[in-house]
């Protein structure tokens, strides 16, 4: 379990992390979201003990990162932003080094290294120096070192940044497989990734938590949650027909397509059946008709812009 209490980090005059508190339990895959400069990477650097906090505490399975750094670090695997590694070493040499630092000795070293090479599919480049590898491979080398000791806590800073769609898919599958009895924290600005792998998402902005919940919960905060999307084949005044339904809040025209409308619901109530009844009764010239899920992107923009506007 990771317990973070009143975490604050101040650089000179600038408050990067502002009184952050949250807890992550085993089995959770926490997506850490936020605009650039919101403090995602800083939080990860604080959790992994690279930076020390100005205030507050971080406990990994009971070990305080500032008081028992070695014990706490031993529980964590970390992929720093940009997946740095020693470029002049080969993949194999580098992973051997990490295995040794992680405390493996003798036969165990080659067994563990082979295991992670298989896990992230690096066998083909194990003899190449890391600086000659493509971005995707470098990222996988970074992942390989992070999962070397089968850590209880895995912290990944933008793990899929710079990967092609196949590699992204592969890394996501890997994270899902690893996650069962572990804690995984990933930071990302790819929102679809959160829906794909995370069981919980925290959105931070200017060092504060602005939203915390399951991806579905966050999506339901969107004004598009339960909205009915309609495509017509000729222009028609929908709004006039819908005034009778209390649950409908407004009708929005698509920015790009004149004939696409979104009928928004009040407070995420289901309006599909009522709207479809009206559509049939009034013979709307409909070609497409479906309920849209809330959009995480929309929630993200709303909550992060609110805090930025408040400053």
């Amino acid at each position: 379990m990771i317990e973070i209490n009143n975490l604050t980090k101040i650089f000179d005059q600038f408050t990067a992390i502002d009184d952050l508190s949250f807890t992550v339990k085993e089995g959770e895959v926490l997506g850490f979201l936020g605009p650039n400069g919101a403090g995602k990477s800083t939080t990860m650097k604080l959790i992994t003990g690279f930076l020390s906090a100005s205030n507050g505490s971080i406990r990994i399975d009971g070990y305080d990162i500032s008081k028992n750094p070695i014990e706490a670090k031993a529980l964590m695997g970390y992929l720093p932003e940009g997946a740095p590694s020693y470029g002049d070493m080969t993949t194999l040499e580098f992973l051997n080094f990490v295995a040794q630092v992680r405390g493996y000795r003798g036969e165990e070293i080659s067994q563990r290294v082979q295991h992670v090479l298989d896990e992230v599919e690096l066998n083909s480049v194990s003899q190449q120096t890391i600086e000659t590898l493509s971005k995707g491979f470098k990222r996988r080398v970074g992942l390989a070192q992070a999962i070397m000791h089968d850590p209880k806590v895995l912290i990944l800073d933008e793990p899929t940044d710079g990967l092609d769609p196949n590699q992204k898919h592969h890394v996501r599958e890997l994270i899902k497989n690893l996650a069962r009895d572990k804690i995984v924290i990933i930071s990302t600005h790819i929102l679809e990734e959160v829906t794909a792998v995370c069981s919980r998402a925290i959105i931070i902005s200017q060092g504060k938590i602005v939203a915390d919940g399951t991806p579905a919960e966050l999506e339901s905060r969107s004004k598009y949650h339960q909205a009915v999307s309609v495509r017509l084949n000729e222009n028609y005044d929908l709004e006039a027909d819908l005034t009778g339904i209390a649950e409908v809040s407004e009708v929005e025209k698509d920015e790009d397509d004149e004939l696409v409308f979104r009928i928004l619901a009040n407070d995420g109530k289901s309006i599909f059946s009522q709207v479809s009844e009206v559509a049939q009764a009034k013979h709307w010239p409909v070609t497409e008709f479906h309920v849209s899920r809330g959009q995480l992107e929309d929630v993200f923009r709303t909550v992060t812009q609110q805090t930025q506007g408040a400053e």
Partner: protein
Amino acid sequence: MGNLAIIFKRELFSYFATPLAYIFIVIFLISNGIFTFDLGGFYARGQADLLPFFSFHPWLYLFMIPAIAMTLWADERKTGTIELLLTLPVRLADAVLGKFLAAWALTGIALLLTFPIWLTVNYLGDPDNGVILAAYIGSWFMAGGFLAIGSCMSACTKNTVIAFILTVSICFLFVIMGSPILLSAFPEWIPQFFVDAFSAMGFLTHFDSIAKGVLDIRDFLFFSVFIAAWLLASAVVIEMKKAN
């Protein structure tokens, strides 16, 4: 094998994985040859000792050691591997010491490879090999002093060129601190103990006596304490400057 040894091995290995170690050793040996035989007048002196060889070492180290030391931490910061290294379950002391010892070992290897000069002097005459051994160890300790300064300067910046220039400048200061020219430049009103203390910090003060075969444990102690102090400073600087 502790983490210190693992880091030491990785660092030393990485010197030899790139041409750096080989170039360093080759240039070191060639310069030593030129200094000893040409400029030092090894043959002309007609004495069976290695004084001309050792007396050039401070000036040779002044440019060669910063070249090794400059990458110690600056590169780690630049490539971001410092974040990797320091989030592994490794104590900062092990990292600082492991890196320093690897660079020190490299200078030790380069120094050992000057053995043909020792063979030559033994072939030509009958030198005091005890004095030569002491001078070798003294020279290696002095190299350690240069390296420790370099480690700290390298920790100050991401830029290896800046690290190099800073290290050369500070090393130069410590080399000339004990030189008579500098000491005679002090005005009379400065108290003598201050001048003595100043001179005692100079590398030449300690190394000259070692090179001449005057074995004084205090000279070795000086370099040991000097190295320890600069490595401690390195650790403090790394801790302070991690964030940027």
